């Protein structure tokens, strides 16, 4: 069984999670068995979708679509238990203060635990969640970069042993375009656009990756925009005029990156789910 990994990242607040959900919905609709994964220790989708709980164990959301929250601890526990095959021994380890203290500070252990889990099926190592596609609602750009860099850093710091070997395997999977897809979500605003340009540059130079760009929350153009020309300063019309100008400029900047660019409209006055469902139409599998 092979598996595809779809990573969605972007500056904080750009709409990563909604986009990730929309992609997951589209793929599930197309017949793929999808697991939507959020990273961290606090679930966003729980509130977004009004679910009672979202944990590590995949929760069925719809046909072909399950959701899971991958925290570093849950991933590591899964991994260790898989190899130990003994609950008692496992408890002995995890309840030991010293072991916990060391794990708390072990460099990149959190990142590797997560990546290890995400790539386990592709590497044929460790317990894996068997789905056709994993859609990962990734961390914001800075943290996401740290995540991608972790395997190589670990392999360099610790030159032998299981973690090191596994790390190289993880690095290979992440750089394999047959397996991994990267999407960067951004907004028509200076800071997100600048950050996207920098992030793309890093991904290309350091990892040889070609991400897809998603420009989100665009105000749909009016049929007649000439009426905005005479708008008073500080009025709604003036705001619209400025935004349209901005959107044009930022769009051009993104086009210059020569990557696949998808433009998504701003959807106002909808519930989160209506929102994700509408966005879904923009993602053809």
């Amino acid at each position, binding site marked *: 069984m092979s598996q595809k990994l779809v990573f969605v990242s972007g500056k904080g607040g750009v709409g990563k999670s909604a986009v990730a959900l929309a992609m997951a919905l589209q793929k599930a609709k197309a017949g793929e068995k999808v697991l939507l994964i959020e990273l961290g220790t606090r679930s966003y989708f729980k509130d977004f979708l009004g679910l009672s709980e979202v944990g590590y164990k995949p929760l069925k959301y719809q046909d072909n679509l399950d959701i899971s929250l991958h925290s570093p601890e849950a991933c590591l526990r899964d991994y*260790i238990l898989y190899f130990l095959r003994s609950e008692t021994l496992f408890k002995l380890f995890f309840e030991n203060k010293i072991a916990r203290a060391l794990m708390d500070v072990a460099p990149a252990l959190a990142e590797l635990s997560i990546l290890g889990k995400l790539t386990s099926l592709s590497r044929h190592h460790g317990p894996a969640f068997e789905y056709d596609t994993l859609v990962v609602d990734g961390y914001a750009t800075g943290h996401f970069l740290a995540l991608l860099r972790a395997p190589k850093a670990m392999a360099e710091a610790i030159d032998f042993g299981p973690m090191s070997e596994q790390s190289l395997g993880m690095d290979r999977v992440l750089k394999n375009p047959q397996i991994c897809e990267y999407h960067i979500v951004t907004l028509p605003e200076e800071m997100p656009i600048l950050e996207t340009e920098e992030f793309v540059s890093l991904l290309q130079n350091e990892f040889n990756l070609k991400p897809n760009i998603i420009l989100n929350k665009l105000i749909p153009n009016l049929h007649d925009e000439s009426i905005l020309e005479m708008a008073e300063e500080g009025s709604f019309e003036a705001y619209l005029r400025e935004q349209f100008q901005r959107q044009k400029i930022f769009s051009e900047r993104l086009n210059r990156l020569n990557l696949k660019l998808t433009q998504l409209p701003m959807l106002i006055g909808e519930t989160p789910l209506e929102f994700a469902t509408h966005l879904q139409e923009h993602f053809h599998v």
Partner: protein
Amino acid sequence: MFKGIKVLVCIGSGGVGKTSVAAALGMLAADRGLKVLVLTIDPSRRLATTLGIQGELGVVKVPNQQFKGELYASVIDHQKTFDDFLMKAAHKKIDIERILKNPLYQKLSTTLSGSQEFTAMEKLLEMVESEKFDLVILDTPPAQHAKDFLEAPRKISLLFNDKIAKWFRGPDSETTGFFRKMMNQGTVQIFKILEMVTGASFLGQLKDFFGSIYSWQDQLKERTERVHDLLLSEKTHFCLVTSFDEAKIKEAQDLEHEISQGGYHLKTIVINRYFPDWLKAQKTFRSVEVQKAHEKFLRYYQKREVMFNNFQKTNAQGKVIIKLPEYFEQVQDLKSLEKVALQMSEQVKD
């Protein structure tokens, strides 16, 4: 707002404009006659240029300023702060050299989980103890949980706790077998698992590391305790930054709860991107299309306002709330920062 305090810590989840707010608060304080230092962790290049700290080490006086007081800024140099701390704490010179040469140290100091937070706190403590500033404002890394940031120093200091060090400082020189003679079966198992998870080389280097730091463990512990006391002090206030967005407000609620539970003094909440200037009640529009768009935007923001009012009732009692409306421009240059500072000034006494 700034009366009687020495430290202001800005916390908040990612993407809320925390760093810009910290800088604007610095300007506000400087304008009120204080000598202020803004400590940033990872400012955008534009903001760093505005503050005069792009590519600069150490503390810089922000250029082109005209305040009653003075505004300084600095980016926390992670590696240098860690090294400086080491120099101060070690008793013998030979210990320092040994540590600096330890390949694990070089990696550890920057990649140890929590080390960034540790150096941020260490820098904060250093600046406060220098007594060169009336007020130090600390910008923090974005956090889902405030405790990730606040407990980081304690986690690092636990690592240097004597119990752990003893684990490694066995009589043997072998990395894997040295303690087997003295420890019980359970510990051996634990060690095996740790080895599997982190690698034998990591543990071996850690052993060497502990041998080197033995002499200054107590210094580290003391330093960590001082940071902890500083954070809990009445003269240290926390400022929670959030934005006018459903998800961010929920995160802010959790953060506020955590901070209050911890006994820290959270006195101010800054809500960014509030109801915008350009979305006032408008009677006439240039076309039906525009009117419809206006209606949509209005409904959108009104919904968020309801949410925010709930937040205010449950989490913001007794706190100063500063609302910053959305601007056309992005807050990055001096002019827009000043605009933000002015907005804040109108809502904040003293």
